């Protein structure tokens, strides 16, 4: 194999970067540049991450003692609902695809932009409108249904369910448009020589995610529309008081929302594949297995939604079927994790901050993945369902998986996006705090859950107090770590060193242009001749051991 691209030389900044190629507020507000839109998404999702994070800290603080402390029951219910809804719909679903994906997908493909740049801009504004709806809902009478909007609670409660679900409905369209755009981009916009086997794994992951976004989100849209209609007209599809079936709502909802879990985690997988290879200077182990397992996960994710209904009065037969299929999704996931570890073998691992996050991910995601197994085992799930065990499990996957990968990716690509280097020492401290804080917070919750602590309680039996306090303290450490990360990253924007075009010695295309990139990404269209993981450090002479 030859080197991946023709030109490997660092590109000094010879043209103004996309950040300064056009000036003025309007040039940002109506931009169709995928990189600027990526940054705008990044700023938005970080804002909502901060808001929902503050809500999480409020929840943990309330739970420091078994009794009601500073929040009333109603407030607590609203706070956990908004924490969930904002985190899911406004932060984690758009986080990696819409922010990092938007920025790097065309770059990694060697394209000038996504296939539909104006649609991309529209998608951002649709997302903003959705956010406005949710904020209006919060400012009027709030929302207390839980982020899952289960009927008949959501059709009978007095809070602003219609405004909030309309917001989520709109956010869904933003997600659909982004996904559609990415699928077309991957199919039609690849640079010369970029065949399917030469696409970086981040692209594969984003592609699989986009497929799920296109196929699943419309069902969320119709579900929420039905919920809005049910609440306003009382047509009686979901509301038992009108002759409907509340469990049917759960089927509708989870047909989207379980695949949505993979919308959240698959892009994280993609980031980890990039980070581990680049920082260990090793070709990824099992490229095809990782790429195809992303697609497999995307497909299987559509047939496992019933595991959210094991104790909801779903038929026992359906439970058995869904349990089996849920285990099936574990296999491709296990393959990925093993392949990442195997990638480390024989590498030359450089421990900078992004790599630290990559290593942390392997720990947290493994815990998250393994604790998914008892939840897919029917009989055990009966005990653990809707307890803190589930809370801990999905936080290990969503925070320990996606958010850790997201922050890792942010560090990995920060020099490329901003043209500045951040302080590595500060970064490692941040990672350490996040890792420790996260594990203290959520590891404890596995034990709490197994002891029978139910979800969504603002007051609890005194037996659980010690573990709740440990968890709360952990959440403070996590919060400090995240704030610290925010501070030094912001600091780097003003004071950071200028970033070279390829600080980590990576081979993928985004590093083959200047930092930050020019408006049209590349000075000339790149031509690809080999694998995206063909590092110069690889010892070709070590022989024809494996092909």
């Amino acid at each position, binding site marked *: 194999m030859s080197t991946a691209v023709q030109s490997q030389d660092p590109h000094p900044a010879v043209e103004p970067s996309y950040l300064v190629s056009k000036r003025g507020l309007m040039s940002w507000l109506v931009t169709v540049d995928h990189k600027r839109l990526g940054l705008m998404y990044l700023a938005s999702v970080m804002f909502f991450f901060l808001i929902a994070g503050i809500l999480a800290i409020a929840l943990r603080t309330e739970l420091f003692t078994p009794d009601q402390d500073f929040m009333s029951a109603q407030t607590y219910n609203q706070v956990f609902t908004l924490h969930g809804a904002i985190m899911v719909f406004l932060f984690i679903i758009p986080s990696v695809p819409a922010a990092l994906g938007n920025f790097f997908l065309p770059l990694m493909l060697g394209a000038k932009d996504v296939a539909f740049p104006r649609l991309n801009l529209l998608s951002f504004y649709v997302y903003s409108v959705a956010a406005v709806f949710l904020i209006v809902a919060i400012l009027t009478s709030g929302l207390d249904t839980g982020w899952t909007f289960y009927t008949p609670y959501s059709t009978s409660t007095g809070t602003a369910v219609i405004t909030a679900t309309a917001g989520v409905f709109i956010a869904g369209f933003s997600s659909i448009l982004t996904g559609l755009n990415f699928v077309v981009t991957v199919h039609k916009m690849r640079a010369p020589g970029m065949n399917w086997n030469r696409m970086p794994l981040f692209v594969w992951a984003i592609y699989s995610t986009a497929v799920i976004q296109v196929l699943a989100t419309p069902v969320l849209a119709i579900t929420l529309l039905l919920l809005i209609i049910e609440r306003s007209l009382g047509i009686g599809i979901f509301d038992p008081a009108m002759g409907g*079936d509340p469990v049917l709502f759960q089927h509708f909802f989870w047909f989207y929302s379980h695949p949505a879990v993979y919308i959240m985690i698959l892009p994280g997988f993609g980031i980890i594949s990039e980070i581990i290879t680049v920082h260990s200077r090793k070709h990824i182990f099992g490229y095809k297995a990782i790429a195809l397992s992303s697609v497999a996960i995307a497909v299987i994710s559509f047939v496992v939604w019933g595991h959210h209904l094991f104790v909801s009065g779903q038929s026992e037969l359906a439970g058995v079927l869904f349990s089996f299929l849920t285990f099936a999704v574990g296999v491709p996931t296990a393959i990925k994790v093993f392949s990442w570890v195997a990638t480390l073998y024989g590498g030359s691992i450089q421990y900078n901050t992004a790599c630290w996050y990559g290593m942390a991910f392997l720990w947290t995601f493994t815990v998250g993945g393994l604790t998914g197994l008892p939840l897919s085992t029917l009989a055990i799930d009966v005990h653990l369902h809707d307890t803190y065990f589930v809370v801990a499990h999905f936080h290990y996957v969503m925070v320990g998986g996606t958010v850790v990968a997201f922050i890792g990716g942010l560090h990995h690509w920060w020099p490329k996006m901003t043209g500045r280097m951040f302080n590595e020492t500060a970064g490692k401290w941040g990672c350490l705090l996040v890792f420790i804080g996260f594990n203290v917070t959520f590891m404890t919750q596995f034990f709490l859950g197994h002891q029978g602590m139910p979800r969504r309680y603002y007051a609890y039996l005194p037996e659980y107090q010690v573990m709740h306090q440990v968890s709360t303290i952990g959440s403070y450490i996590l919060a400090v770590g995240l704030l610290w990360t925010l501070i030094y990253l912001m600091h780097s924007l003003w004071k950071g060193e200028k970033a070279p075009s390829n600080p980590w010695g990576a081979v993928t295309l985004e590093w083959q242009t200047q930092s930050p990139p020019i408006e049209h990404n590349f000075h000339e269209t790149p031509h690809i001749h080999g694998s995206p993981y063909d590092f110069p450090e690889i010892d070709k002479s070590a022989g024809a051991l494996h092909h």
Partner: protein
Amino acid sequence: MAKVFLNGQPVEHPHEVHEHISPMSTYNGVIGALFVLTGLTFAVSFADLGPASLTVAMVVAFIKATLVVAYFMHLKYDDKFHLFVFLGTIIFVGIFFGFTMFDMKSRDALNDEQETFVRWKEQENAGKGLVVGVDNVPERRAKVLAEIEAHGGGHGGGEHGGGHGGGEHKAEAKAEHKAAAH
């Protein structure tokens, strides 16, 4: 710009648009067939086929849909990947329908086998039944109140069946909802 690339592959004649243009006869034939099929399904609806009418109507609808998709939407001549997208979508719709209907159909199997409903009713009929006189649903409250009235204020417990709890079996639920809706 020596060479033009598409999908990572060089394209020999980038300006040629490979579009199939169907002759008028195709369109005329298709619309004719669509009208005939519409007439057929319309006519059949007057005959009393019982449960088979759904099957017949769906088969006809699928044939009509196939005609529209294949000829009006050019899927027959189009990029095969578009066909893949379309059929893939149908498969996912099938998954959505299949699993949900499977649950809905098999849901009461175990309850029926164990006669949950029968037992519940037997307890009531044996006079042991207790009233859970709880009802927050405005539509049903009127009925509950009427029953309480009919039974002399509603205390004493146990005499008037416990059906207003919302735990109705489907048949009963239907009757009651009717009362509520009307």
